[in-house]
């Protein structure tokens, strides 16, 4: 079965207008993309195609092809890297708790170091997420 491709989009009608005052020829081309390919509808063997076949409405605008599927898979795989950021942040704040338990007077200093460590670890996770979105939308 050969399914429809964009190559089947073809100008169906060409109309030419000429207005006396405009002195220009406007050409309008109507393109019709066969949204569902007649050939894609499965027919029982040995039956010739009728002239008018049942057409279905295409309700989604995006065409899902193998390229988009690859993008989805790539973005999903890239998002796994955020787990490293989660582990790092857990370690940082666990160490903050232990450090504060040992010396409660250093609360402010320890907390500012913890926030610094959290920010850096989060940045790594966001780099990973950035690559995921790059794959999903830009490549």
């Amino acid at each position, binding site marked *: 079965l050969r399914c429809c491709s964009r190559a089947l989009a073809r100008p169906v009608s060409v109309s030419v207008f000429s207005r006396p005052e405009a002195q220009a020829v406007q050409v309008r081309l109507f393109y019709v993309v066969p949204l569902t390919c007649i050939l894609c509808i499965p027919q029982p063997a040995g039956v010739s195609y009728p002239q008018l076949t049942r057409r279905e409405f295409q309700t989604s605008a995006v065409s899902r092809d193998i390229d988009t599927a690859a993008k989805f898979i790539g973005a999903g795989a890239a998002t796994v890297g955020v787990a490293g950021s989660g582990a790092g942040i857990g370690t940082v704040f666990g160490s903050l708790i232990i450090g504060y338990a*040992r*010396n*409660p*007077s250093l609360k402010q200093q320890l907390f500012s170091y913890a926030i610094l460590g959290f920010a850096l670890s989060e940045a790594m996770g966001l780099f990973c997420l950035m690559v995921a979105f790059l794959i999903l939308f830009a490549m």
Partner: protein
Amino acid sequence: MIRARQLLRLAALPRPHARSYADAAAGPAAMAFTFASPTQVFYNGSTVKQVDVPTLTGSFGILASHVPTLQVLKPGVVTVYAEDGTATKYFVSSGSVTVNADSTVQVLAEEAVTMDMLDLATAKSNLEKAVSEMAAASDEASKAEAQIKVEANEALVKALE
């Protein structure tokens, strides 16, 4: 191999005082704090909220129901936080800290003074003298003595700044 067996044997021994992070703290909720030097007693069994001590394993704060521990003091500042939150600082030269299971804390210092007895300029000049002494020291004993002086004076200057 032998170490692993030793560790297993240690782990199998009953340890009634070992407490994990998740267990609730046992003992009285108030700390009985004793802080003295051979010449002067600062606190004797009084109730304070928190004590920060400088030890050879680092500075840490002691609250009520602290894990029992024995530590050696380093030259530095002992900060005592009273029940109402006011902090009093003392400079200690050396000594020991004992935290018991019944929340009694004894800080016994070799020499302990309040911060107003110390002068920053004198401390800085003492530090310079000690550094030059260490550079000029010939044998190991005098070098060690000079190093002790340097560390003590560094702690003094840091405490006063």
